[in-house]
């Protein structure tokens, strides 16, 4: 009796451990065999870390990011890169930071202990910021393809970079668009109480106030909130002309749906975290007409070669940040090639001065590690698809059609018109 009981418990525990283990990370597909390469010169394995939430509410975005990095590394391996006379094989170490700020430094320390040459990550600003000091101490370059909170690069760390724009560029962009196009008198601002959400909401509020628009006292949810009715009911009573939410799509979708159910018929606007086509599924018809911004150029304006390669490899379309993590990984590789070394200390200066044509356009870093001249794009949801409305670059608003027509896009990156994207999907 006792033994069987022990057995049952043991089995259950083992089961729990197993499933936990599997949940952490999908087994990486074996790297493509490098055919046609003569008996190998000494091969070194260079580890590249990637961290993002792979479980929890925004695990889909985390996986998307990881896919971007995986694509870049696999392509580099297939090409076969030689640095300092040695053949390099890149290996991806994917970690799950669970989108938890306290998990950030732990994952970062893991990477340091595993002696990675560079890190792409993290997804969340709230996780990236505490993690960055660990990377800084170890001198390991880290490039985030998604963290937009200004603080990340304001800490004076030489190793922290990002390939996306900052909230203090993105917030003003979406806020000034909102102010110019909808001319609201009162705006309600909500955030999800994360570093990203409240940071973005702060920037939006500041810009709106500067434009002489009244902003209601901030309402907050959490990154787990599904029930926004209490908050929205309160807001409805104050009759704002527009609503801005700083948060992700998994919470933004229900917010929008419930707002419409409560009979709030004003425009809803979002930052990049809720600027995904998922919004259409999560909020249904309510998503129609939302306004949102993305740091950088639209996913569909990313390099077509990247879009095709991603689709071919993962049998899915990139969701949001994968073009940026793809570029981030390629930047690390490029800097290593330029420095002819995989030593972080040696290739870091090259990385800081890099000038690279990536899937999201031309990339250069300023002295803080932010991307120079990052574009912001304003989207709207039309017939269930996100359509770019305008590109905002160095404070100027350019209509999307003009942007594509003028060839401004061609200079930045070969933008793909929407029609092509639709064709790709089939």
């Amino acid at each position: 009796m006792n033994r069987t009981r022990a057995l049952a418990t043991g089995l259950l525990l083992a089961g729990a451990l197993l499933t936990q283990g599997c949940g952490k990370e999908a087994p990486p597909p074996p790297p493509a065999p490098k055919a046609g390469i003569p008996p190998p010169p000494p091969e070194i394995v260079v580890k590249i870390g990637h961290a993002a939430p792979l479980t929890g509410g925004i695990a889909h975005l985390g996986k998307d990011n990881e896919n971007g990095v995986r694509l870049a590394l696999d392509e580099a391996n297939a090409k076969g890169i030689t640095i300092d006379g040695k053949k390099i094989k890149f290996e991806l170490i994917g970690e799950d930071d669970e989108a938890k700020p306290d998990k950030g430094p732990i994952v970062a320390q893991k990477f340091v202990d595993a002696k990675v040459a560079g890190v792409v990550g993290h997804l969340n600003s709230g996780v990236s910021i505490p993690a960055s000091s660990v990377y800084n101490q170890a001198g390991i370059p880290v490039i985030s393809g998604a963290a937009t909170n200004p603080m990340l690069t304001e800490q004076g760390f030489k190793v922290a970079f990002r390939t996306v724009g900052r909230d203090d560029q993105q917030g003003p962009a979406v806020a000034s668009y909102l102010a110019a196009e909808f001319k609201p008198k009162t705006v309600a601002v909500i955030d999800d109480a994360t570093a990203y959400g409240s940071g973005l909401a702060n920037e939006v509020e500041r810009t709106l106030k500067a434009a002489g628009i009244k902003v209601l006292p901030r309402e907050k949810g959490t990154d787990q909130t599904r029930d926004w009715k209490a908050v929205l009911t309160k807001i409805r009573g104050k009759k704002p002309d527009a609503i801005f939410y700083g948060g992700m799509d998994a919470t933004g979708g229900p917010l929008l749906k419930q707002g419409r159910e409560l009979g709030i018929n004003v425009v809803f606007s979002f930052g990049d975290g809720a600027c995904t086509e998922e919004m259409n599924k999560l909020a249904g018809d309510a998503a129609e007409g939302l306004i949102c911004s993305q740091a950088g150029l639209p996913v569909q304006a990313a390099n077509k070669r990247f879009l095709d390669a991603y689709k071919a490899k993962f049998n899915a379309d990139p969701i949001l940040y994968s073009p940026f993590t793809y570029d981030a990984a390629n930047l690390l590789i490029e800097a290593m090639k330029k420095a002819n070394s995989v030593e972080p200390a040696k290739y870091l200066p090259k990385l800081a001065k890099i000038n690279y044509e990536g899937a999201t356009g031309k990339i250069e870093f300023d002295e803080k590690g932010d991307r120079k001249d990052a574009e912001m794009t304003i989207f709207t949801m039309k017939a269930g698809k996100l359509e770019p409305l305008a590109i905002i670059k160095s404070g100027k608003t350019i209509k999307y059609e003009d942007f594509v027509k003028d060839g401004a896009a061609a200079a930045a990156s070969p933008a793909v018109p929407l029609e092509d994207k639709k064709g790709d999907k089939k």
Partner: protein
Amino acid sequence: MDIFLQQIINGLTLGSIYAVVALGYTMVYGIIQLINFAHGEVVMIGAMVALTVIGWLAANTALPPLVIVLIGAGVAILVCMLVGYALERLAYRRLRHAPRLAPLITAIGASIVLQQVAMMVWSRNPLAFPQIIANPVFHVAEATITMVQIAIIATSILMMAGLTLIVYRTRLGVAMRATSQNPHIAGLMGVDINRVIAATFMLGAALAAVAGVMVGTYYGIAHYTMGSLLGLKAFSAAVLGGIGNLAGAMLGGLLLGLVEALGAGYIGDLTNNVFGSNYQDVFAFIVLIAVLVFRPSGLLGERVGDRA
């Protein structure tokens, strides 16, 4: 005033859902003094199964939407009852006479297993729950109430009434009450305790499945982690009402829903925006702590809570 009325409607809807889930906790606790922490995950499985079935039927058949939703809920109920039975049979029955901590830890383990299995089956993405029934909005005074909200409140009342009937008017109910008073003596009196306990788990799981469909339809979203917080709150509701007490679970659920809606709606104004509506989730646990400190037996509970 319209805002207050609207918050009451919001709270009642939320509370109805909590009440249905809380019933599952309270029934199991009443009968074997186990806090079945995997119950929230059963709600999630119910939502996921219904989502899959409804999505498939809507895409591949021409049945009327209401029929599709009913079939979806039916399949979810069956699957959840199976899960409930399996939980009891595989995870808890062997531990029935073990020290109380062992089944509690097992329950937490079972909830992790269910969550991770769901992640493998249904992916990590938040899934959109198919919205196939038209959802007209009605105006009451200046507040709004949707068809789905009315349906949720009505269904949960039906569920509670049905459960009360089963417990107080059927042979199974008599056996359940006898087992909860004293399993040993009930056994001696010819009650098949194993069957009764399994039936209790399955009843609770069926309620959980219905709650899963409600949550999915109401928020339009389903995710593999959706059960944990919901489960914890429903558990708080059960404790508030007096765990082990059916009427208490219903009362506790409704009260908790109202407290959350009103709390989140007014805390900002009352504290001059020092605390914001992001403290919505905290109310459930403040209530839980307050109840445990001041009235451990809950609002309607009689037994003094000497058990874990």
